[in-house]
């Protein structure tokens, strides 16, 4: 029932205006835009009490490729560390110590300053039982919050949208990038994504073009919905997509329920609704901090402007790639972590200048850490547990949890053992930051890790 209401509301956004008539193509585009935006805002406040100017915001930062956590938060006084990493082990001049045992990687000055200011928490040794060392599978596990032997159809953030954000606004989740992450996959798909606000629009060529475009992309044009609501990202109930013969096909890949065109039609509606809003804000709001020059910094700059512009978004998703350091790890990780620390620091400064810092929590994750022992190519291979970072001014700062032991007898197949299941962290964020019950989203009850 919930889904039907949502769809109905979406349709109303596009078609009904305060003029009391259908939003046909004969209404000038600028009027149509204005009224659908007004309508959208009114509906938000009615259906999404948690969304809007005052609610909390989660920024998820994916460090793609499997970051070497051991050289990120460094157990620099451990003999086991230096024994396992004769070449890659960081020396005194390559680290920034926080105490007698633990140090930040030397290029994480940005993180260290956040840490000193009480704005950064390091959750040590995060992982999950029966770790998988495949990038794709382990990413999928983090994105869907599944057990490692189960394939889930939907992402954890998608399930959050399904459960807690029944409003009709597709901008509840925003990804900077051209693809939605699997974490956003939902029964009722929501969330928009784009790289560049200027491109994020239909560009009419000459008069009449935009009006026709709107009419061509109305919901009426798609085939009738199957009974019981839309199911465009559903897989069949026989579970034929949940492993077995086609185990490597990702959950989002196949079209196995509904018509492809229904999904596309809904995406077209979401695109129209969000495009004016995003462009308006991006044009109006300026960044108030100096960021580095990098794709990650650009993504965070955009997020900052959207937050400053009062988007109804509760979850932003940005990513930084390149952490798969099988070879020449020293130089590439140095560059990546510097970018990470400096970009995050600039974003926090920007949020503070906006007066929005208390509303924002940044959470980083990577699909796995890396082996304790270095390999023969100046790099490290796929491992298991690694630290997560949380950043904000209402978070628990400092070193959280404890550092996993690097002693060979404590390792499992060459990897450190996790102390904290990432789903406990998700539970903490859902319960204590997004203020929503976590069990329905995570499938069962996980003790919320105290980070707020």
């Amino acid at each position: 029932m919930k889904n039907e209401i949502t769809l109905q509301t979406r349709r109303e956004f596009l078609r009904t205006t305060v003029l009391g008539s259908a939003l046909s193509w004969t209404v000038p585009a600028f009027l149509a835009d204005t009224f659908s935006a007004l309508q959208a805002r009114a509906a938000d406040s009615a259906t999404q009490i948690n969304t809007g100017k005052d609610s909390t915001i989660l920024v998820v930062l994916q460090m793609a490729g499997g970051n070497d956590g051991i050289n990120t938060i460094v157990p620099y006084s451990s003999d086991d560390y230096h024994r396992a990493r004769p070449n890659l082990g960081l020396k005194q001049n390559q680290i920034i110590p926080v105490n007698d045992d633990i140090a930040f990687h030397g290029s994480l000055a940005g993180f260290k300053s956040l840490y000193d200011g009480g704005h950064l928490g390091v959750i040590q040794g995060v992982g999950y039982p029966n770790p998988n060392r495949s990038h794709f599978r382990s990413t999928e596990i983090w994105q869907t919050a599944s057990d490692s032997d189960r394939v889930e159809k939907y992402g954890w953030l998608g399930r959050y949208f399904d459960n807690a954000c029944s409003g009709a606004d597709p901008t509840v989740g925003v990804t900077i990038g051209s693809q939605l992450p699997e974490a956003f996959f939902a029964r009722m798909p929501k969330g928009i994504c784009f790289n560049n606000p200027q491109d994020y629009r239909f560009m009419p060529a000459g008069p009449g073009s935009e009006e026709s475009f709107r009419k061509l992309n109305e919901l009426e044009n798609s085939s009738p919905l199957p009974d019981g609501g839309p199911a465009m990202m559903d897989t069949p109930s026989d579970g034929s997509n949940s492993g077995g013969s086609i185990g490597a096909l990702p959950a989002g890949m196949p079209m196995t329920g509904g018509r492809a065109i229904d999904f596309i039609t809904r995406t077209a509606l979401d695109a129209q609704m969000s495009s004016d809003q995003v462009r308006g804000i991006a044009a109006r709001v300026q960044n108030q901090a100096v960021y580095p020059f990098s794709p990650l910094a650009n993504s965070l700059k955009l997020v900052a402007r959207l937050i400053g512009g009062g988007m109804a978004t509760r979850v932003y998703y940005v990513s930084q790639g390149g952490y798969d350091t099988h070879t020449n790890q020293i130089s590439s990780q140095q560059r990546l972590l510097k970018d990470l620390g400096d970009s995050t620091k600039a974003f926090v400064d920007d949020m503070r200048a906006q007066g929005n810092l208390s509303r924002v929590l940044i959470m980083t994750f990577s699909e796995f850490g890396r082996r304790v022992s270095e390999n023969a190519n100046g790099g490290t291979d796929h491992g298991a547990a690694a630290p997560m970072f949380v950043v904000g001014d209402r978070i628990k700062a400092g070193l959280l949890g404890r550092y996993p032991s690097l002693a060979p007898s404590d390792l499992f197949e060459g990897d450190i053992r996790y102390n904290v299941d990432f789903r406990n962290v998700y539970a903490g964020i859902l319960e204590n930051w997004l203020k929503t019950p976590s069990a329905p989203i995570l499938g069962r009850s996980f003790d919320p890790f105290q980070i707020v």
Partner: protein
Amino acid sequence: MLKPLSSDKWNYEMAAHLLNRAGFGGTPDQIGRLADMSHDAAIASLIDYESIPDPTLNPDWAHPNPDEVRQLREAIKAAATPEEKRQIQQASDKLEQQRMLELRGWWMQRMARGPRPFQEKMVLFWHGHFATSVEKVRNPYYMWRQNELFRRLATSNWEFLLRETGQDPAMLIWLDQAQSRKQHPNENFAREVMELFALGEGHYTEHDVTEGARALTGWSLDPQTQQFIYRPFIHDNGQKTFLGVTGNLNGDDVIAIIVRQPQAARFITAKLWNYFSGQVPDDALNDALAAELRAHDNQFKPFLRTLFRCEEFYGGDIVRNQVKSPVQWLIGSVRMLESDLPPTLISWGMLRQLGQDLFAPPNVKGWDGGITWITTNTLLARYNDAQSLVQGTLPPLHAADLARKQGGANGQRLERAMKRMRMGGVNVEKILTPDERQDNAILISSLQHRLFQGSLSLNQQEAIQQFLDSKTKMSDADITEAIRLMMSTPDYQVT
């Protein structure tokens, strides 16, 4: 299961479906010619391409270049200053980029204009399956060579193709097999060949990965010849147990043992069915498909003939229910509209923006495909790229974006150069008769037939009609905008 489509069901619509899926679509004339053949003859005209001459010339640098690689290395070593070193490296990077651009154009032209669309569709399948990226391989010759391998073995034997691909230089670099040795076996290829190429997760253990990696040691790349080489002295001669088989196994054994698994046939038939039909086969259908592949001794050609013949392939849940990949969208548009592919820089920019950067898949899993091609962002980009495609104008913003990335004076030069580029665009006289242009209803009907081999909804037809009716004196640009509007629909994104 897999009964041939009955001959009374073979018609224009089904011929269009076959051409869309086994190729990249075509003009009403081309579809009509297929429909006039028998179903079997139509399939044969696409998949028995060996007798069709393909006169495409290879890029002039497409040959082994060990001297070039060695000279670069030596020049960098001999550089007197870091600045000189940087300049040499930059010149080399630039050459690599130019060649990759040429290679992308070369392949896109083969897809858009070449005489063997089915072969190119298979090359695209294998490229997505054995997804290898130049971002790591960094050698255009190797990328070209792998592309040619997929072309040469497009419909060959599963075991042969898997081994040849495993020994392909680009793959040896991409999954680190070239660096694997007895003392430090690298598990990357051993894992992915099972997880992503041939079996799927859950059909092997971590132990099989470790043991497989040991068996595969010795597979290497000879920088002198730029060919695969087996190096016995880095091969682990010990006993291994891999997927239940014990012995002093080597790389050939690993491939043979993998393909011998019943799951190896099931894995690849499910993926081929998904690629061509747009759906995941249910277990019963996939069992039948896998049995068909095995019955033909793991030869893909006869298996694919059965696939394109069977009635399941023409089912209501299959026809016009596949999301077009960006390549299908671009190449199909050019083929249907009888227009030229935009200059490579522009075509490549479009594919990148739409999420399918040829020779640079996001990771070894390849492109997820299906509905994941469609996001709010890529959908709007398709609608906007349609405009530059039909009108022959520069894509409004991403071209400028490309130029910006170059930066400075270079960027401005590039931007000016792109503004001068001839973009092709649709020649209205070529695709519409003067009579069709006299009546908007007939015009719309003709364009729909060409673009959808079917109809839009009445509501949508009305929108186009009203757009055209509002023009007092209809110009070619108005007609191309009407085509663009038809392409700016959810309907155009499926095939």
